[in-house]
């Protein structure tokens, strides 16, 4: 069905042999059929090219990724990159400080906004820090008072303070996930590349899952890799965790199971009349997986087996962080059960809740309360269960915020510098890597574009992004990025 002269469906791909060899049986056939589709995605003459076989290219340090993304743009200066000069010079213009050169037009050139509206402008009057900072852990890394629980885990965390991007508006959310400015078009996200490159950890579960509010940007991941590599959106609702996860009209489990058996028998009869019929074989397998997913997916978000201590740890008893706590607890359960990539977006509304154009103090106080305890709990919980070593946790956002004030009490979008952090799975803890200038305006030391985060994660997962490239879809050096070796253990 999916064969083209260049990409035969009937030629048994290496991947299928691999899966059969792994004893994964019929589910492997469905996945193999998907990979046949992937073969079809090569645009032209794939001489010497083969689809990924699902195995890492080299020994991985980590198996899974929990990707925490704060929609809207977290202030780097008030989270992980303290800038006392802002307070010192608060109320003065940047031109009046010794650091006027940060606004040198040459240094501002990288900005390319997809949506050039009234935001994303230069804000000249410095806005003092809105919260305090303290040193934490043995490493003594400074973390703002808005993130006390994360601060307690700081020795497990590598903070990267020298990130930069190019879109000064919220399409930078997409840019952070794909590595490309939206003006260049739409490209696969990191999660899709991981999903494309690596085989399944658990054939009963989707391998790439999305939780929370995916705000501004398009809800697609696979793009030219295909819709099979889109994240599967899940809800924290055991009764209805995924689209069409349970019958939308009354039908007993037993009747449905009976139906699935009949479907399988009928499809098998039809396949025999059409043999060889890989498409029908794949469809039979997809029904078996779907049937198992109906029970395995609700289990991911069913917390009845969790202890009260665990629930309290994640803050499930506290209204201000309950929702995010449940998402992170679900994420831990997913990692335990073998979900590869869990993408969690926090902060709905507008272009993202963290987008504090006004009243930054209230905005970030409230939002950090919502995420801090659950994130601290996640790191602690993963560590206690021995999962942190094989799980990469990423805390990210699309850009930083301006050192200058917008209106009386807000900060505007700032693509020139921002902070992200990583922990677990092969990441060195207790390190602050890279630096911004005295105002937090530009990343100046060990500058990293967003794809360096991608490259770091892929390396830890044992993947070489160059080997995942598809003929006809040339990627640039900047798409691949470079691993941030300094933060690797």
């Amino acid at each position, binding site marked *: *069905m999916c*064969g*083209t*002269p260049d990409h*035969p*469906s009937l*030629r048994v791909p290496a991947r299928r042999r691999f899966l059969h060899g792994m004893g994964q049986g019929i589910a492997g056939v*469905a996945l193999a*059929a*998907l990979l046949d*589709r992937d073969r079809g995605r090569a*645009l032209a003459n794939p*001489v*010497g090219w083969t689809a990924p076989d699902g195995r890492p290219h080299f020994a991985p340090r980590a198996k899974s990724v929990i990707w925490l993304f704060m929609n809207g743009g977290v202030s780097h200066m008030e989270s992980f990159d303290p800038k006392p000069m802002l307070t010192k010079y608060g109320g003065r213009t940047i031109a009046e400080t010794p650091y006027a050169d940060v606004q040198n037009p040459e240094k501002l*050139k990288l900005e390319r906004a997809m*949506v*050039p*509206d009234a935001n994303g402008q230069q804000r000249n009057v410095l806005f003092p820090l809105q919260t305090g900072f303290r040193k934490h852990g043995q490493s003594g890394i400074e973390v703002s008072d808005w993130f006390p629980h994360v601060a307690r885990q700081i020795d497990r965390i590598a903070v990267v303070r020298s990130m930069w991007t190019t879109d000064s508006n919220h399409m930078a959310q997409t840019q952070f996930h794909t590595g490309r400015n939206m*003006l260049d*078009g*739409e490209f696969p996200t990191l999660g899709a590349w991981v999903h494309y490159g690596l085989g399944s950890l658990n054939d009963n579960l989707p391998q790439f899952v999305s939780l929370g509010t995916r705000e*501004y940007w*398009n809800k697609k991941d696979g793009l030219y890799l*295909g*819709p*099979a590599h889109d994240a*599967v959106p899940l809800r924290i609702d055991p009764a209805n965790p995924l*689209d*069409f*996860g349970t019958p*939308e*009209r009354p*039908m*007993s*489990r*037993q*009747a*449905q199971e*009976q*139906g*699935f058996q*009949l*479907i399988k*028998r*009928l*499809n098998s*009869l*039809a*396949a025999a009349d*059409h043999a060889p*019929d890989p*498409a029908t074989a*794949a*469809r039979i397998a*997809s*029904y078996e*997986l*779907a049937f198992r*997913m*109906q029970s395995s997916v609700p289990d991911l978000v069913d917390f009845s087996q969790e202890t009260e201590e665990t629930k309290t740890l994640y803050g499930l008893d506290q209204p201000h962080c309950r929702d995010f706590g449940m998402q992170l607890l679900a994420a831990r359960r997913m990692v335990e059960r073998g979900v590869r990539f869990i993408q969690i977006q926090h902060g709905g509304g507008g272009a993202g809740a963290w987008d504090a154009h006004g009243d930054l103090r209230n905005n970030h106080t409230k939002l950090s309360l919502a995420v801090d305890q659950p994130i601290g709990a996640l790191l602690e919980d993963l560590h206690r269960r021995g999962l942190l070593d094989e799980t990469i946790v990423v805390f990210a956002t699309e850009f930083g915020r301006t050192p200058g004030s917008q209106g009386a009490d807000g900060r505007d979008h700032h693509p020139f510098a921002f902070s992200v952090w990583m922990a677990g799975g092969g990441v060195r803890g207790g390190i602050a890597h890279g630096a911004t200038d005295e105002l937090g305006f530009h990343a100046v030391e060990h500058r990293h574009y967003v794809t360096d985060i991608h490259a770091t994660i892929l390396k830890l997962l044992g993947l070489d992004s160059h080997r995942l490239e598809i003929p006809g879809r040339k990627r640039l050096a900047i798409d691949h990025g470079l691993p941030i070796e300094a933060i690797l253990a």
Partner: protein
Amino acid sequence: MAGLSPTRSLHSGLAWLACVAVRLAVSMGGLSAVAVSAVAAEPLAVYTDTLKPLLAERCYSCHGGLKQEAGLRLDTVSLMRQGGDSGAAIAAGQADASLLLSRVADADPSQRMPPEGEGEPLTPEQVAQVAAWIAAGAPAPANEQPESSPADHWAFQPRVRPAVPAVANAAWVKNPIDAFLSQAHQQQGLSPQPEASRAMLIRRLHLDLIGLPPEPGLIADIEATAASDWYEHLVERLLADPRHGERWGRHWMDVWRYSDWWGLGEEHRNSQKHIWHWRDWIVESLNADLPYDEMLRQMLAADELYPDDPAKLRATGYLARNFFVYNRHQWLDETVEHVGKGLLGLTMNCSKCHDHKYDPIPQADYYRLRAFFEPYHVRLDMVPGEADLSRDGIPRVFDGVCDAPTYLFVRGEESRPDRSRSIPPGVPEFVAFRPISIEPVPLPKIASEPERQPWAAEAHMASARRAVAAAEQAVGEIAAGKDTTVAEAKLAVARASCTSLERRIEAARARWEWEELKTGGDQPPLVRGLARSAVRAERELAVASARQKLAEVEVRKKATDGDPKGAIAADLTSARGELESALAAVDVPGESFTPLVGAAWVQTHFNGTKGKDPIVAFPAVSTGRRRALAEWITDPRHPLTSRVAVNHIWLRHMGQPLVTTMFDFGRKGNAPLNPQVLDWLASELVDSGWSMKHLHRLIVTSAAYRMASSPVGGDATASRDPDNRFLWRREGIRLESQAVRDCMLAIAGTLDSTMGGPPVPTAEQAASRRRSLYFFHSNIDRNRFLTAFDEADVKECYRRDQSIVPQQALALSNAALVHDSAAAIADRLGDASAAAASTATTLDDSGFTARAFVAILGRRPTAAETAVCLESLADWRGQASADGTPAPAGDHSRMQLVWSLLNHTEFLTIR
């Protein structure tokens, strides 16, 4: 290589070579071990397996068939030895004396090949492999062929109608398509599969031509008929069915990137509101068999070809869809890219930043194509009966900024336009088979002054009268004793507005009539008098509005205790002042009244400022650029247009394209395995007057189309051509997302056959039973159910995905749509049996199973299938209520059987 830049040639001579040798020695230090091992591994094999592909990727675009920079080609070893302007590129056996090696290994980026920005440098390992291969004598494969010249590329050649061959298997041949295929079968030793069963053909034709399954009664009638031409009759009937336009309209909507508007929340950013007018035009045009060339002409330039025909102007939705409110470059990039890919099979987009690496398309050609589109903007034209353009209007294009320059962007960067010259419209030289003649197009008044459309005045009047009626009703509904001053003031405004409109219409019409007479001179007193009364009526409207405002402030004052801040007093003063000025203005003479609105330019924000861009007016003359482009694209001599169209049509009938790279017919694309089929059909398309129905007819009446898709029985053939490259059997096609849903509703008898009109909003889709192509579908708003089945990507969808994923199984087994349809189908089949049976006996389970198979899969079940179905029916009945989980009351076993069949792989497949 040998001569990269003019300065390089000055460096010829021994001194330079010595210098290179030193650098080379440095850069290759430590690599000799690698080099040795590479040689050990068969230098010839290293060349053919590793180095040749590497050179092809990094070097051939400038030193191969496409271009010969510095006179050098690297596409064969003998050409390397022959060398270019700077001499031989390789000296066999002497790596350190070979320019090829020194240039790829040069430590100086300004000297190294490939040049910066043109390709990645070779890695040290690759350099070592090159060195080792040269050192080993630069062995070459026997008869190494150079790259072909772009001028010889198949798709750039004029289309020639191929002679139809006489073939051995003449009995199989139904039309020339089969003769060409049969010739290939003969050459490859393949035997075509037999014709599919009648039932399968009936279902295949229905799904393919109208996107809906056959009625069981029809299947029975045809299976019973002795008429030998039943097939041709069915084809004609289906091609004449209006649902054919809906089915194929959806295919072309994929290719032409149909999308409803999207943005951030309610803010319109992409595509157009009311773009559905274009969708309706597509459906209607296909049903009317509007020639393909004419469809393209209208989509590209109806505003220049038919400026006073609103029905045809709808076609320009094709271009209006590319609108992007914030960035003109992105908008035009998409236009150039998809005119190239969708209509011409050319990846013009690859030339935005640099010369094309595979096709003879210099960077400037990208901007030459862009220049055709540079002046165009989008506007909404008023439609009869609706004055509010936010509720309806036809999105169409017009040349708004006729002198907009086109600048080449250095390296494709928008921030680096080369303002030294404006690039004129033009087409790539290799397809310039005729001169492009661009003549300005004077537009009729009705295009540049759309308020002259007769329905504009009518729509405005109707809307003004509705406002008066509403205001009268509001006054009438105020309870006795309540204050009516504000309501009455509003009524006065509505009436004054109506009067003002009437006067403006009269004045405008009088002026137009006088203009028609073309007498010249001053306007006659009658015309001027009407203008003065229009002006006066507008001023009286201003007075009424000022009175209303004052009345509102006075009411507010009454309702408020005190006025501590003096705000109301200030408002009162200002409202009284406004009224006074309005009254004073009434008697001031004037003849300049506000023109009516008949269309509105769709506002852009290119300037990146907070404010909107200055309004673009509707010029009286269009540039004629797009008309010229459309005429060139649709010229029967164009080598690409007809071939690309045939490939799209063939793919959707046959399940696989003739050219697998749907949007790339260039040298990087794949050549067709059956080029004669492509060219013969392209000739048929053009010679039939670009009739798509003619093409459909040819394809579906071929023996190739009628073959079974099952490979069973064709083992010997399958072993020779396992991938069916030469079409010895049919390809199964997984139904597209829309067809999955439409078919289910059709079988349930619940499909709402209403055609056309505004799209069904997302929130209403669950309850809607309209065909799926009418669902609102944009980059952001997608239907949940359709999304599971590879819904079209509105950004680019030249070929629909046919994935098989568990989410499809979940959607088909759990969606309310499927359960409701299954129940309706079960009822329907039961009713049918009751109606058919004169006795009161009910249909037994095996009778029901047979009916369900025919209704859902288009065929009767086999004995084995009947047996498993009967078993399941019995099981379901046995377990009813035996289980704690919720189940509907009553016997639903037959509904469950239907539900199972809707999940059958055959339901989802055109076999």
